């Protein structure tokens, strides 16, 4: 059984198809990253999966229950941590968790123990009786996340968990997410704009744009599918023919561009190729003056599926205009 499953899911607002025939599955225990530009359909999808919106057509199942026919069972199975902080500022940290426990029908005799445990996990035990208005952004986010997993849901939805936080706090939140995932083994469905975040946390990633899933795969496969890593090197030697021919015999090297005393190598595993380059250069007495390795990042993957900024110049402009138009429509 899948934790999350959608079949031809669609949602339209008037003439705009916010989500258009989307089908995907998330396995139990997986951290699944849902990526896409603003207005791509991420929020709409998450709102359907959390029973806040009804789909126009298609099906969505969460923890085996259809969101349309069994919304109550879906709500019992999920935790939802929204993008904006939803903790009550005037209540203390503990009171906020108490509210969350009651909203999620945690049996009375377990409430205090669960709150104690979760406060320990997110390291807020010593601040639990302070009003949340005195908390920093990172502490509020931790409390938000704690509230979402207090009742140990089968599926935890995290909507942009680190938006607006500084990089130190962001990393700390990633640690907490990894920690809770290890501890509770629940499925995590996460949306984000930060490729680094997706890369760090997610087992698999789905990229959505224009209401459609563009690709679903592991971050590693996606980056590999981008193709080659690039090694650029410069050297001091006029007789480069031998060097070139020997370099091109390395298995992992796919292609070499030559430009006077600069080679650009397209390789499939840069870290393995670089030592070989040095072995050859030493044997030939060639002095390498600089070398660099560029690997495709998830940013490149993302841009390649969603970005209008790259690709041909002549179509790029039109795509950008079309994108701006869509954004206005979605706003």
């Amino acid at each position, binding site marked *: 059984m899948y934790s999350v499953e959608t079949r031809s899911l669609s949602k339209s607002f008037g003439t705009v198809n916010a989500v258009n025939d989307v089908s995907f599955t998330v396995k139990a225990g997986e951290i699944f990253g849902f990526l896409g530009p603003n207005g791509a359909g991420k929020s709409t999808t998450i709102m359907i999966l959390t029973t806040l919106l009804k789909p126009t057509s298609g099906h969505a199942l969460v923890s085996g229950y259809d969101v349309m026919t069994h919304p109550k069972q879906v709500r019992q199975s999920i935790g*939802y941590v929204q993008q904006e902080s939803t903790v*009550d500022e005037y*209540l203390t940290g503990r009171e906020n968790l108490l509210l969350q426990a009651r*909203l999620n029908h945690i049996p009375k005799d377990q409430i205090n123990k669960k709150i104690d445990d979760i406060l320990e996990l997110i390291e807020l035990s010593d601040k639990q009786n302070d009003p949340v208005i005195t908390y920093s952004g990172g502490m509020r986010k931790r409390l938000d996340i704690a509230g979402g997993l207090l009742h140990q849901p089968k599926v935890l939805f995290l909507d942009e968990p680190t938006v607006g936080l500084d990089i130190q706090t962001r990393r700390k939140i990633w640690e907490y997410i990894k920690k809770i995932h290890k501890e509770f083994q629940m499925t995590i469905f996460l949306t984000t704009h930060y490729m680094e975040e997706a890369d760090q946390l997610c087992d698999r990633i789905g990229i959505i744009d224009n209401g459609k899933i563009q690709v679903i795969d592991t971050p590693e496969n996606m980056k590999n599918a981008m193709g080659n890593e690039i090694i650029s090197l410069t050297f001091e030697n006029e007789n480069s023919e031998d060097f070139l021919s020997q370099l091109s015999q390395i298995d992992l090297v796919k292609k070499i561009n030559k430009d006077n005393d600069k080679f650009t190598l397209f390789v499939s595993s840069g870290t393995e190729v670089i030592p070989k380059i040095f072995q050859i250069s030493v044997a030939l007495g060639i002095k390498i003056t600089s070398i660099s390795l560029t690997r495709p990042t998830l940013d490149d993957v993302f841009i390649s599926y969603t970005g209008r900024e790259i690709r041909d110049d002549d179509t790029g402009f039109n795509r950008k205009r079309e994108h701006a138009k869509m954004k206005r429509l979605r706003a």
Partner: protein
Amino acid sequence: MNSLLYDTYTIFWRELKRYRKSRSGVLIRLIQPSIWIIVIGNTFSGTQPLIQSVGFEGQYIEFMAPGVIILTAIFTSIFGGVNTLWDRRYGFMNKALTSPISRSSIALGKMSAISLISALQASLILGIALAIGVNFPNPLMIAPIMAIVILFSLGFSGISVIVAATAKSQETFWGVINFLGMPLFMLSPALFPLELLPDWLATIAKFNPVTYTVLLVREMMTGVTEGGISALLSIGIILAFVLVMIGLASYVFTREVNKPF
């Protein structure tokens, strides 16, 4: 049923916690009714003969004090639902909507918290009235009066929750609430006896639940029955009003929160 009560209590608890943290608001909200009772109560003290002509012995201020208590209840409860709009904007509503609690319990929890707060505010006004010398022969009536105020406010908070759930903006909410609040107060015997109203206004007032609440509370405070409307009839009408509002508010709230905000 059990879980509906538990869920309603959860929301009720949260609303009261929030109210408790906004103590300054309590005093500010007392200013307006205090002005009513002190300024209007004394300004119109010369209308005593008019009041007496319909069988009410005593000062004008004693006649209108119950009206101001109800005024406090009307405005506290009809304004009380406004935080529904904040809850929807700032995500608390989505948090509640994605938890297993029922939609109706959110509306009912808010309404019961508002009505308790309303009764608290009204009891403070009653205190002020007594402090400035309003005669109140039977202090034992305080408990039943507060029970009536809670009941009445429960109904009125339903209006507030309905408007807040339907309105998409603060402006709409305040526009509608101001349009409703003052006329409902004015079209009642809160300040003057029904007998002194022109016939057509008196007829309209008879369809107003505020009318029966004012008459009932005044009877409980002064012992005078007006216009031949018995306490039992008033209680019946208030109960019917409250039941209708509970049903309507649950229905409208559930329907509205299922739409995107």
